[in-house]
């Protein structure tokens, strides 16, 4: 290590003399120019387009990813939701309860929140048990010829397994009459809960009740028919007659009779 230094030609007095008098330095103006150029170069490097893009991406990539995930989740959840009208049938007052088609989803009346107030009104426990027993019997006679009552078809939409589970739930001892109404209503709602309708998630009920998937066209047709009840349909036929559209009224009436063969036609619509 010391060999190169010993090899190095040197003259210490001469070097000392040189350094003593070699004191000239650059002017302050050029110092300032060079230092300013150095700082400007650093600033220009920070403001380069590539650096700007990098900073922009680093700043916004997390919010963008979150927003994209949120939008995707909302879109998928909206696609999974049933269209409006599914599981909802307007209530028909009086004995002429709207008969629903057999292809209607079993969860149509299963959601207590979607049911109109008149239909949701909790019957007494004894009546509930009796009605459920009747429903079970009617369900077992689905293949019987069309001579039953008007409101029976909407009851037939319940599957047999559902009816059996409901009847077993209804066979339990009736609560005392002094029990609060809220408690009673909860117990009467056991049937829809047992029927496979998860509260707050309507879309799972048809899937749980139906063993296979229903074609989309048939499902849409059944939904449309479910919305249009028999009395509403008859009102439409009357309106067509009043408008003079007899051919369409006749066609609609034929279709109505084919759809509801057991429905007693009013006097004004009988042939």
């Amino acid at each position: 290590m010391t060999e190169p230094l010993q090899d190095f030609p040197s003259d210490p007095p001469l070097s000392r003399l040189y350094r003593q008098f070699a004191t000239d330095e650059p002017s302050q103006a050029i110092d300032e120019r060079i230092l300013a150029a150095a700082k400007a170069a650093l600033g220009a490097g920070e403001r380069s387009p590539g650096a700007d893009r990098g900073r922009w991406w680093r700043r916004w990539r997390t919010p963008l990813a979150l927003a994209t995930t949120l939008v995707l989740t909302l879109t998928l959840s909206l696609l999974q939701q049933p269209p409006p009208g599914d599981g909802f049938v307007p209530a028909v007052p009086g004995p002429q309860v709207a008969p629903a088609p057999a292809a209607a989803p079993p969860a149509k009346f299963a959601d207590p929140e979607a049911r109109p107030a008149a239909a949701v009104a909790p019957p007494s426990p004894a009546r509930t048990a009796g009605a459920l027993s009747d429903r079970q019997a009617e369900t077992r006679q689905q293949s019987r010829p069309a001579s039953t009552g008007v409101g029976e078809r909407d009851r037939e939409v319940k599957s047999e397994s559902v009816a059996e589970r409901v009847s077993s739930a209804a066979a339990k001892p009736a609560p005392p009459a002094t029990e609060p109404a809220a408690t009673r209503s909860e117990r009467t709602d056991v049937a829809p809960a047992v029927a496979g309708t998860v509260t707050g998630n309507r879309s799972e009920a048809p899937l749980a009740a139906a063993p296979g998937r229903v074609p989309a066209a048939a499902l849409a047709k059944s939904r449309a028919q479910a919305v249009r009840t028999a009395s509403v349909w008859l009102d439409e036929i009357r309106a067509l007659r009043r408008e003079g559209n007899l051919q369409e009224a006749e066609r609609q009436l034929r279709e109505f009779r084919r759809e509801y063969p057991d429905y007693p036609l009013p006097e004004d619509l009988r042939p």
Partner: protein
Amino acid sequence: MLAYRAGDADAFTTLYGRYRGPLHRYLARQCGNPTLAEELYHEVWIKVINARANYEPLARFSTWIFRIARHRLIDHYRQHAHQLPLQFAPHAGDPAADGPEDLLATLPAPSHETPHAVHERQQVAERISLALAALPAAQRDVFLLAEEGGLTLEEIAAATDCGRETTKSRLRYALSKLRHSLQDLL
């Protein structure tokens, strides 16, 4: 330099303060024209600033920056071969125009000294400058790289693109001639 490359402006200020005097003197002694020396000095530092992104510490910073300065001088020599470095020599051109009085006026001196002390210092500095100017360019180059840059023989040899023994021989000759010229001052 690595800190400056990473964005630390203060690191460059420190680096500049360390090398501003030696680099300026090297250029001033080599080209002999203070105005031209400042111009070259500015260009060298701008090259350093622009080369920061690609800087790799393959050698000492002093070796690197003095090599840049030397190459810049060579470029200038090539562009103005008929003017340099004879311009600085006292025996070149009109002796009256390039006499000691003109050179004395160009040498900077501290302002706090008395005129007499300044005059004496300027005279000594002038003699040193003249002795350096009298050296062959290669020997002066080696001497300045050793004194101002603090480079070793190997580093000088690498910077001047010649062998180590050649560098050693040039430096020995330069020291001998300077000692002979400045004998009465030593």
